[in-house]
């Protein structure tokens, strides 16, 4: 639902870098997005296409790398992937403890762009 402001923010950053590097056309944009985000890939692209019309980023393809939600065990430091649909009775696969910190899954990051 909130794809529009997020896409606007991406476009602003892309256009800033496009101007800095004097590119004529942006072909692709590399993004890292955490799986805890509720963004939909299809709608991200549609909103981006709408917002970028008439700019050097028009027609750029979003290449999204989804970053898994990873928990780190507070006891032994073991890291493991969280299945967000199964939160019941989770214990550390290494030591069996139940206290964790979330180390990834909330990313919202522009990695790079392919441009000419």
């Amino acid at each position, binding site marked *: 639902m909130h794809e529009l402001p997020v896409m606007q*923010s991406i476009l*602003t950053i892309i256009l800033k870098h496009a101007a800095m590097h004097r590119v004529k*056309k942006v072909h692709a944009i590399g993004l890292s997005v955490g799986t805890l985000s509720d963004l939909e890939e299809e709608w991200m692209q549609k909103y981006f296409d709408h917002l970028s019309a008439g700019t050097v980023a028009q027609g750029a393809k979003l290449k999204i790398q989804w970053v898994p939600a990873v928990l780190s065990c507070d006891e032994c430091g073991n890291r493991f992937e969280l299945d*967000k649909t199964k939160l019941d009775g989770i214990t550390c696969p290494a030591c069996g403890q139940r206290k964790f910190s979330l180390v990834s899954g909330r990313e*919202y990051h*522009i990695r*790079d762009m392919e*441009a000419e």
Partner: protein
Amino acid sequence: MAEIKLIEIKEEILSDNKKEADELRGKLKDRKTFLLNLMSSPGAGKTTIILKTIEHLRKRLRIGVLEADIDSVVDAQKVAGAGIPAVQIRTGGFCHLDASMVSRGLDAFDLSSLDLIIIENVGNLVCPAEFDTGAVRNAMILSVPEGDDKPLKYPLMFSVCDVLLVNKVDYLGMSDFDMQALYDRVRTLNPKIAIMKTSGRTGQGVDTWADWLEVEVKRFID
């Protein structure tokens, strides 16, 4: 054909909002005003809990409320009816508040005359979780009728909040809501979150919540 090159960017997508939120927190610290961002789905009891919180704290803290609604002023009227300064932001279809909207909303208050401003965010468990509003603490309400499975559906929201109010606990006897399962699910996502049980209708647990909030406010403004 021109050569295609790969240009490194390495920027956070919402960095502008984050920067604005950090600036707002700095300004609030200077003015000694605590900002609480309260989030929930529609109908979980935000307005009722706010009114009960005001009852508990109004003699000890000077309170204001920033109401966000897509297109109505009903909630702001209820709060203003309690004699509390209330400012309404119509989000005009926007599903959440960001730091710049909150910052503009706060311009309508005299910050130096308030200790605590509560933001009643748009009723939605998805979008508000993504946008730092500039608040000092994030709170959410989950009401019993919504079910204990909500952390499975909206994990981000549960992971960004400092405190969770499980509201409408007076409905527990009429539901199969599993409190232990809820605690486990929430604590897996967010081990540091404080969880409190409340009922806006009976007032149960509101004192514990109000005391928690008062401690947080005092710590920030003193």
